[in-house]
């Protein structure tokens, strides 16, 4: 995509209708998650601690009994530290302790959760209705919307937010989210569903967005391969598309964007072939909170260190600085 082309999409708001009960659906899901008793432990990791940062492991019971693991880097520079909730890309895991240390090096604590059933140590309880072979987007798609993988995951993240709210060493007024790709989608949804906690969001090329457009563009491959798989095996003539796309709309990042209240620093790369820039436009355009999008080119769906550098001041300054 060119710069001119993306500028022509300033009014584009996505290709799938928002479910009429989207907000009510998620309010109920958050209420369900709030009923789960908190069970968690924090213990030392295999990484030795340094005077300014302890390297800990957080283990907790997520929604549906998921055994969730998270890296917890606890900054000890202040009595109460600001915190970053870090979300990772699909289908990986929280990246190295050293990589997460960048935020600790800014004086922030950080919790980086492994998504259940992906590349890290969190265990997913499974039990999804329908096919499970082709990824987490369609895990549970043939059942009730509330039983889909990503619905449960957002409920698990709600439980994580409740744990964070209890940690006395956290400056509750400065809890921010950061993530790229799936991490961007989860971070944005976390901000939307936990508006009283999340104060800022740094979101890079969000995944899980505008599924219908992904399908139409033929980008239902790589990370979005489940859409094509489901279509070919379970809806070959497309006659059920409204039905299953309607269920996916409950986990579409662009619909969460409507609910975000905090400032959002957003990044898109024009040459992204995994998460089409057009789908990212739907998300960005639907944000009503203070926001700024930086457009890059030539990086594809890979690390954009210029975006990461913007986060230093976006999170670090008292006043919001979008760079």
């Amino acid at each position, binding site marked *: 995509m060119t710069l001119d082309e993306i500028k022509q999409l300033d009014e584009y708001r996505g290709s799938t209708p928002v479910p009429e009960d989207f907000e009510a659906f998620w309010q109920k899901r958050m209420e369900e998650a709030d009923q789960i008793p908190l069970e968690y432990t924090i213990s030392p990791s*295999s*990484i*030795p601690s*340094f*005077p*300014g*940062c302890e*390297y800990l492991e957080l283990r907790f019971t997520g929604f549906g009994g998921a055994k969730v693991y998270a890296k917890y*880097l606890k*900054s000890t*520079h202040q009595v109460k530290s600001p915190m970053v909730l870090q979300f990772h890309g699909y289908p990986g*895991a929280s*990246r*190295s*302790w*050293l*990589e*997460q*240390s*960048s935020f*600790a*090096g*800014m*004086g922030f604590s950080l919790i980086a959760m492994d998504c259940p059933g992906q590349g890290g140590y969190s265990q997913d309880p499974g039990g999804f209705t329908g096919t499970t072979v082709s990824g987490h987007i369609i895990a549970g798609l043939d059942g009730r919307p509330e039983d889909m993988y990503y619905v449960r995951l957002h409920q698990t993240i709600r439980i994580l937010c409740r744990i964070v709210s209890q940690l006395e060493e956290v400056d509750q007024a400065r809890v921010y989210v950061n993530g790229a790709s799936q991490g961007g989608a989860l971070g944005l949804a976390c901000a939307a569903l936990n508006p009283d906690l999340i104060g800022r969001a740094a979101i890079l090329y969000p995944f899980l967005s505008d599924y219908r457009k992904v399908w139409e563009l033929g980008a239902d491959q790589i990370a979005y391969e489940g859409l094509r798989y489901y279509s070919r095996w379970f809806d070959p003539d497309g006659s059920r598309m409204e039905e299953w796309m309607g269920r996916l709309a409950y986990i579409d990042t662009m619909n969460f964007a409507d609910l975000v209240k905090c400032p959002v620093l957003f990044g898109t790369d024009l040459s992204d072939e995994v998460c089409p820039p057009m789908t990212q436009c739907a998300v960005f355009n639907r944000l009503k909170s203070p926001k700024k999008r930086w457009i890059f080119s030539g990086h594809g769906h890979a690390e954009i*260190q*210029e975006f*990461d*550098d913007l*986060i*230093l*001041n976006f999170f*670090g*300054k008292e006043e919001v600085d979008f760079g």
Partner: protein
Amino acid sequence: MREERKCSTKSVGFVNPIAIYEELTIEGKGKKVSARVIRPRAQGVFPLVLMFHDCGRKVRGWHHMTRFLAAGWGVVAMEHELNGSPVPADYELDQLKECCENAILLMQEAKKLSWVKADRLVTWGEGFGGALAIAAAAEEDGAVGCVVLNPMPATIEGGDGASFELPWFASRVKGSVLMGTCLMDEIADVDGQYAVFEAFPCKKRHLIYPKYMHERVNFFEDELLKFLAKAEEKL
């Protein structure tokens, strides 16, 4: 008049309560070396990571480099111009050698910085940055930690009989070494990497990643962090 080498820093405007961001320039005697610096804001002297980037890419970002401050280490990251091809053989031998000379020069000057604990130095690099990390460590008389992932090139022959021999540099490293090799690496020749590792005469450890290519390895980065913790006590 004998030309002196001048080392200067310029502040970079990132806000961080525990760190200061600077650009460092070393000039003189026909050389100019640029580097990014992040140092602890507190008073005192601190251990230093001297960091070198691969060819085919630019220097690592400021946010990336900030990771070392969590451990209380300062970081100086050299910027070199070999950011076109990812293959060292695509550059002139003189360019590779000049980068090595600059890495050595940077080590000499960086350890003189007022905030650096000169007996706690670790060089770190990936790919061609690994070669630079080895070269910088090799010229030090004292013990220096050296951490490298997929170091390259092992050997490059020039047309006039000149050559670049990384094992020669490796044979001069004192201190301790942590090295990682990805067996599916098609850019940094694996046999050459083994030759480099064999040449280290000092305390050393070699970690192998069978299904990784010329790429970052999360698990090796965690080993680097553990290495820094041990290096705080002894190199």
